Structure formats: structure tokens, C-alpha cells
């Protein structure tokens, strides 16, 4: 990836993340989140993952943030609430301390000496030359970014892929059950 592009993207992503945390209005936080997500898609494009980048924009920047905005508007929680806790005064310094400490720890791990395990032969190389029946296809583009992803998703991760379908169904049913206004008269709540 072009260094200039990388640093511009990095600055936009980090400032968007800071905006999510700092913005007092939750709507502004959601919009800052979109900013970070879209920049992240740019990173994915630079890392030879175009399909992931598109899915990132469609699912994260569109669907999830729109859901966030729906709930913010529905609850009207975009006004009159303190952004940070006023009850626990010690919370802010402790949170910042923990954040800085974990960042330093991650930085040491990242910039120090690390190595991955031996790469097994049964991998799914991203930049493989496409072959049909063991023969190289002439004229086909050398980089076919979606094919290896589809192959790994439907061979090695076929079972987890099916399980995620169950997960999504459970999540949808759970969301409906939780958010539905019950028709029966609510039992009287005992106050402690």
C-alpha cells in the first residue's frame, strides 16, 4: 500500500475512533464510526481483500450503523445525558491508565520479535495463479482475490459457516422476543 495513502487512512481511522469516544451526542459517535469503518475498508482493499472491504461497507457502515441510529432515534437518547460518568470520579483516570498500559503492551508485542507458526502446505494462497484441472489458465488475471476466500469458506470452514446460520437465526429470534412489547398485562413488579 502506498505510504502516503496508508498514513492518511490511519489518521482518519484513528481520529474517527477518537470521535466515537469523545463525541457527546451518540448520533455523532455513530457517524464517526462510519468514518472509521469506511477507512478500514480502504485498508482491506490495500491488503488484497476486496470482498472483505465491500462486505465491511455493506454490513458495518450501512446495516449496523443504521441499526444504531434507529435505536438512538427510537429511544431519543441523544439529549440530556451526561457523556461521562459523574458518579464515579475515579473512573476516568483509571480507564485512561488501563488504555495507555494496554496500548504499550500491544506495541511491545507488535514491534518486538514475534513469529508465526510454520505455514502448513494445505493453505489457501491469496495470490495463486488460477488453475483449472491442474493447468494454468492462460489469460486469466494472476490475482483472483475472491476465489481463495470462497474455497476456504466452503471447505475448511464449511461446518463453522453452517453454524453461523444457526447463530443468526437465534439472534434474530432473540432480538424479536426481547424488543417485542408483550401483549399480556405485565405482572406487577415488586419493588425492593
Amino acid at each position, binding site marked *: 500500500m502506498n505510504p502516503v495513502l496508508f498514513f492518511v487512512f490511519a489518521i482518519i481511522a484513528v481520529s474517527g475512533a477518537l470521535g466515537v469516544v469523545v463525541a457527546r451526542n451518540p448520533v455523532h459517535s455513530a457517524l464517526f464510526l462510519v468514518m472509521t469503518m469506511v477507512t478500514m475498508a480502504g485498508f482491506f482493499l490495500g491488503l488484497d481483500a476486496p*470482498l472483505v472491504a465491500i462486505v465491511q461497507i455493506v454490513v458495518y457502515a450501512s446495516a449496523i450503523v443504521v441499526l444504531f441510529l434507529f435505536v438512538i432515534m427510537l429511544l431519543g437518547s441523544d439529549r440530556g445525558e451526561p457523556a*461521562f460518568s459523574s458518579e464515579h470520579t475515579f473512573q476516568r483516570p483509571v480507564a485512561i491508565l488501563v488504555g495507555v498500559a494496554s496500548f504499550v503492551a500491544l506495541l511491545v508485542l507488535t514491534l518486538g520479535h514475534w513469529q508465526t507458526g510454520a505455514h502448513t502446505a494445505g493453505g489457501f494462497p491469496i495470490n495463486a495463479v488460477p488453475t483449472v484441472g491442474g493447468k494454468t489458465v492462460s489469460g486469466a488475471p494472476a490475482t483472483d482475490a475472491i476465489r481463495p476466500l470462497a474455497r476456504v469458506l466452503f471447505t475448511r470452514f464449511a461446518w463453522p459457516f453452517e453454524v453461523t446460520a444457526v447463530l443468526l437465526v437465534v439472534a434474530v429470534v432473540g432480538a424479536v422476543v426481547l424488543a417485542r412489547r408483550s401483549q399480556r398485562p405485565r405482572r406487577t413488579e415488586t419493588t425492593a
Partner: protein
Amino acid sequence: MSDMLGVVIGTQHYFVVGALLFTIGSTGLLLRRNTIVMFMCVELMLNAVNLTFVAFAKDLDDAAGQAAVFFTLIVAAAEVAVGLAIIVAIFRRRQGVTADDVDLMKG
């Protein structure tokens, strides 16, 4: 063009950005009291991990890292759907979505 600044962007650069985003997300999760914004911070942390996954996929030249991002995305979507439903349910009961409002189990 690619050595305009005299640096070559490697995997570690992406890791640093990912670490920064993860830390900002976790700090925001601890700082903020609005549950919706806390959820957004969790999304930020998940996204930082996604960036690391894709960077590793490129580094090791294996599409399995990109497949992991898909599973993270699916779990994140399910989490947001259920989590926001819980927030709506809490809001129905007690007219507030601040984390300090939910203190029923406080001793």
C-alpha cells in the same frame, strides 16, 4: 511512488493501527456510560481485530484470515441485534440507557 516517504508499509504498520484502534475502543468502553456508545466501542475493538486478521492473511498469504473476518462480522451483527434489543427492553422499564441506571443487582 511507493517509497515517497522512504518507508515501506509492512504488516507491523497495520498491527500498530489495529492496536491503536483496539485501545481507543477499550478505553472508550471504560469511559463512556451511554450503553449505545459503549456498543460502538465494542464494534471498534472488533474492527481492530479484523484489520489484524486481514493483515496476517496478507502476510502469510492464506485466505483463512479473511474467512475469520467473516465470522467476526457475523458474530458482531448478531451481537448488535441482541444487544440493541436488550437496550430497548431496558429503556421500556426505566427510561434511561446509561450503564449507571442498571444497578438492580448492586449489593
